[in-house]
């Protein structure tokens, strides 16, 4: 389970400022539970965009956007709608946004921030990993996460350690994340993103928000609801 929240509307507006025609992609997986990518939210977003003068060329809600094959399959009937759009608004977690960007040759705008669950999730979700940083930067990096793809988690561009497209830290297994981002942005005609703004990360957002703490590991750790009080007492006696 991955938890996401919608980015503020003015942020989404800024991402779409230069796009007239948009395709919306939602997700019936975790994003449905988070109410960020379910059909109702996608339709409400469509309505809002249309009220603001955008053309929504189409929309689709896939079962699991974290799976590239499923996205490709799901989008087959929507091919012309996606192709006629200037960009795609992806309403799901950071993994789904990256998976969408990997199979769609269009700018894929992130509509959400993925919230940190504090390590409760023990999955390794494919090549598109998400650090749940709570402050998604995929808008500026062509849908490729620099926090998981760059060894140093750099958010302001490539360091001097990139050699033949590989990271000097572990060249056998690691591509240079910023080389991937560069190639993707070049393809999209968005290389200016690499020099526009100096970014300083808000690491505070990597902490799970208090509201989520009651639902996961913290709840087990709380003394008043500890699941094995008898065992603890027995240990104390000995």
């Amino acid at each position, binding site marked *: 389970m991955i938890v996401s929240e919608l980015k503020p509307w003015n942020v989404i507006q800024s991402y779409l400022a230069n796009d007239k025609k948009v395709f919306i992609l939602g997700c019936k997986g975790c994003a449905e539970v988070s109410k960020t990518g379910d059909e109702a939210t996608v339709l409400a977003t469509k309505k809002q965009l249309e009220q603001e003068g955008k053309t929504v060329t189409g929309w689709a809600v896939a079962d699991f956007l974290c799976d590239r094959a499923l996205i490709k399959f799901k989008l087959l009937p929507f091919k012309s709608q996606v192709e006629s759009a200037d960009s795609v608004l992806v309403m799901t977690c950071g993994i789904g946004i990256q998976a969408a960007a990997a199979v769609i040759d269009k700018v894929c705008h992130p509509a959400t921030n993925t919230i940190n669950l504090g390590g409760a999730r023990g999955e390794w979700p494919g090549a598109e990993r998400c650090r749940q940083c709570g402050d998604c930067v995929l808008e500026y990096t062509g849908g490729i996460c620099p926090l998981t793809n760059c*060894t*140093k*988690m*750099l*958010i*302001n*561009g*490539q*360091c*001097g*350690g*990139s*050699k*033949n497209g590989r990271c*000097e*830290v*572990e060249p056998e297994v690691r591509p240079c994340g*910023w*080389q991937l981002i*560069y190639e993707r942005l*070049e393809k999209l005609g968005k*290389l200016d993103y*690499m*020099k526009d703004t*100096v*970014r*300083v*990360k808000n*690491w505070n957002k990597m902490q799970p928000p208090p509201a989520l703490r009651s639902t996961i590991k913290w709840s087990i750790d709380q003394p008043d609801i500890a699941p094995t009080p008898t065992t603890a007492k027995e240990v104390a006696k000995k």
Partner: protein
Amino acid sequence: MTFREALKSGKFVVTAEVGPPKGVDMKEFLDNAELLRPRVTAINVTDQQSAVMRVGSLTAARLLKDHGIEPIFQMTCRDRNRIALQSDLLSAYVQGIENVLCLTGDHTFLGDHPTAMPVFDLDSVSLLYAAKQLEAGKDLAGKDLKGAPHFYLGACVTPGAEPLGPQLLKMEKKVKAGAQFFQTQAVYEPKKFETFMKRAGKFGVPVMVGIVLLRSVAMARFMNKNVAGVHVPDELINELDKAENKVQKSIEIAARLINQMKGMCQGVHIMAIGLEARVPPVLDACNL
């Protein structure tokens, strides 16, 4: 003339670097600095270069200053978060150190403490930005400073990177963030450097070409294999390999490279890495 004034005056500027020791015996460090002093405008002090733990660059830079040598304080983002980095910038200024070279830094994995946690809270670009904020009397959190520092801020770029595009975009970002001069990664290919300068010249910021003295054929091959953005061409390796007097040849090669590139840029930065005694003869051969 200070380093800043020298670069502003338009004259060709020479800098070199010294690396603080692992341990507290500062004699060799100071001897090397004294050897370089009469030939250079300022001396860089490296910050735990190659992620190897050593005496800190701020203290070592202060030592140079106490000996009447103008230091360029190198700072990497590998070992300190934004609180420590900003604090060290203020500490540097308080000690009269204004030249700061802002670097991201090698990954801990490549150094002698590979199990250490790398920090990278900021990077070269955001460190430059932080320094500019301090100059404007604010810290990164937007809080007011009691007395603002002033720096001469530098950055690094790799002219030999393949491809060059991402490096140039980052260089432009560094200029925007506040970089006032560049000292480059080592260059052995003047043609490549010329191509680089044609594209980098438009940023209007002085560039000092980086020269690393060749110690041996093995060292050249090692760099080709392991150091990103550095390529020693086969002709140079063969030339060094065939030479009877390797010391003389390494001096000759470095001097030739500087002579070939000095018309293309605003200065040269020599990284001798233990071969400081060869720097004066190299500069003699370049009339510098």
